């Protein structure tokens, strides 16, 4: 074999330039030029004014204990409203003496979620534990009827447990359905593809409110006499179907990002469709779509507040209705919303943090 010398590029190096001189790590960056200094001072001033207002309202001028009348006399926040209404805000109409049950259910649920977030415990065992132990326990705690627990109909459920149930259980059920829909839409079989596309486009083409409205208001009218499906279940199913359509499109994005060679490699190894999907394509596709998926989850966690439109008392609605107590009406207006915002923020931020953790965890070297 003969050697061919080919000059690909000019091999002489241009002289290196020194990096721009650092003009001070903090001071220079913010006050380096008159323009920067002006912007910095304006921003600091705004932040300071807002912080002063917020701290004044939240703490300095606030009332921390006392009666509605004492609250009315001060200009700051009225925190006794929250402590007086706390149990109603969290649990709604759930019978007062039995409220340890939704509390226990919520703690069990959050605990189980925390444990399930650890990659080491993932596996078939975890899935079985959820389906066979955790979910039935949650149901028995909430609904009662066994082990001497009194029956509490779903019309009495409300507050945070209801929001958790609608959003997290809804999303957990929607995820497999969404993946199936994404596979259907990417399928080579026309009938399945048409079904998948049809479902996704119809559901995405309608606002969540109208789906909830149809499920809770119209559906019962078309049922035969004497057959009723629980309103909560109807809303839950509506949310699952709605979320599944959006999840499907996100997952489809991931599927398309997996190079075709991966599938072909699977074929040449003699794997059949499901093996290729389960072992090669889906793991890569899902890994790629973690950020948009989690962002959708956060969005849905907040969207479940829409169920108030069909008369379910979710967390935001218990906050809102608590403020209408004649004793507190007009006295505590912002406090409830601030509290709700904090609760929603905490859970959304946790989901965001977990998403970043997952991205790190799945970051493999060959990417």
């Amino acid at each position, binding site marked *: 074999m003969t050697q061919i010398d080919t000059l690909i590029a000019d091999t002489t190096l241009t002289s290196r330039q020194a990096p721009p001189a650092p003009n001070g790590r903090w001071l220079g960056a913010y006050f380096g030029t008159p323009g920067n200094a002006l912007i910095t001072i304006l921003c600091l001033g705004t932040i300071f004014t807002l912080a002063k207002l917020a701290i004044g309202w939240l703490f300095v001028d606030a009332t921390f204990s006392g009666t509605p009348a004492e609250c009315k006399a001060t200009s700051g926040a009225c925190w006794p409203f929250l402590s*007086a209404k706390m149990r109603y805000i969290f649990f709604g*109409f759930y019978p007062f003496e039995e409220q340890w049950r939704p509390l226990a259910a919520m703690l069990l649920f959050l605990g189980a979620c925390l444990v399930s977030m650890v990659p080491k415990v993932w596996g078939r065992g975890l899935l079985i534990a959820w389906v066979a132990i955790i979910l039935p326990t949650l149901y028995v705690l909430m609904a009662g009827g066994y082990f001497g627990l009194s029956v509490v109909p779903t019309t009495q459920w409300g507050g945070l447990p209801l929001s958790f149930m609608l959003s997290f259980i809804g999303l957990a059920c929607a995820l497999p359905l969404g993946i199936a829909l994404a596979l259907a839409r990417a399928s080579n079989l026309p009938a399945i593809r048409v079904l998948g596309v049809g479902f996704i486009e119809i559901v995405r083409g309608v606002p969540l409110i109208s789906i909830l409205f149809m499920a809770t*208001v119209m559906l019962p009218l078309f049922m035969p006499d*004497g057959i009723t499906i629980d309103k909560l279940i109807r809303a839950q199913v509506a949310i699952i179907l709605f979320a599944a359509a959006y999840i499907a499109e996100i997952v489809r994005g991931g599927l398309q990002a997996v190079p075709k060679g991966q599938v072909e490699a699977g074929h040449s190894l003699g794997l059949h469709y499901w093996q290729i999907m389960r072992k090669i394509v889906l793991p890569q596709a899902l890994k790629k779509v973690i950020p948009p998926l989690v962002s959708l989850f956060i969005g849905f966690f907040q969207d479940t507040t829409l169920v108030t439109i069909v*008369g379910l008392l979710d967390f935001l609605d218990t906050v809102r209705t608590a403020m209408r107590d004649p004793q507190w*009406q007009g006295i505590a207006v912002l406090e409830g919303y601030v509290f709700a915002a904090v609760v929603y923020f905490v859970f959304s931020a946790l989901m965001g943090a977990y998403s970043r953790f997952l991205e790190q965890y799945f970051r493999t070297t060959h990417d």
Partner: protein
Amino acid sequence: MKRRILQLCATVAGVAVGLVAATTANAASTLETVKARGKLICGVSMSTPGFATADAKGHMQGFDVDVCRAVASAVFGDPEKVDFVLTNINTRFQALQSGEIDMLSRQTTHTFSREVSLGLDFGPTVFYDGQGLMVPKSLGVNSAKELTDAAICTLPGTTTAQNLSDFFRSIGGKFELVVFENPDENRNAFFSGRCEAISSDRSDLASIRAVANNPDDYVVLPETISKEPLAPSVRQNDSNWRDIVSWSVWMLMAAEERGITQANVDEMAKSEDPEIQRMLGVSEELGKMLNLDNKWGYNIIKGVGNYGEVFERNLGTKTALGLTRGPNTRWSEGGLLYAPPFR
């Protein structure tokens, strides 16, 4: 826009409800269903203080709630045997029609089109309300007719805006409508001077005025620009159940006429007055005729008190709302409450 769509949905659903209701015969009577369930299910709203709100323990209280409790007392002898379902403007009638609730007690105005086309029957009016206007005293206006080109704050109601435009057209005036989705925003906009006037039902205006920093700075104008008879409603074509709801309400009113209260009902049961005897189930069998326990009337008054007690407890001058009885007082004192005789 969202609200428009919802209202359209609600209207379409309402008409569908009417059609379905008109074509299906009732499978089981509501009373049997309620008795078999062991609890009444009552649709309420939680939008107005004094009518239906939850206390710190999540226990429901309010004027609308006590109407439900009166019916529960009539059926079960226990005012607590009732579950409350939240309804809103969009779902209230459908909830009733689909059988999700047994009765609706939710500040609903009794109107022709609702009763005739929505497949429901209204009971007696429990609260006579009407749309009014409130202005700051500093505006120096004594009558709604003096409001010219005023900005008026309202909530997006089905009829609130229409009543205003009807009224101002009739007096040849003009106004600007400022609509707020949320009652708190609406109130604060008025207090901060965004609007010259605020318009709502008079009971609602009273509660808005009650939470002002200085209620004396505001005055409710004398004009009542609409009639809003608020009444409970039930599904159409169940006469027995409608009778139970209607006569439970009239029992509250008649008890006040006769001076029967929660406290003295046991004593009054010994009364020689034949009508009181019939009401409390001492003589004759009025309760049996309703398929109820003969002590139904006694149970209602024992459970929630008479109309005056219910009013004063939830809306009256000693509460945060501070409403006076106004037209909601008995006929013998110039009011509109007039219960048919119990005989």
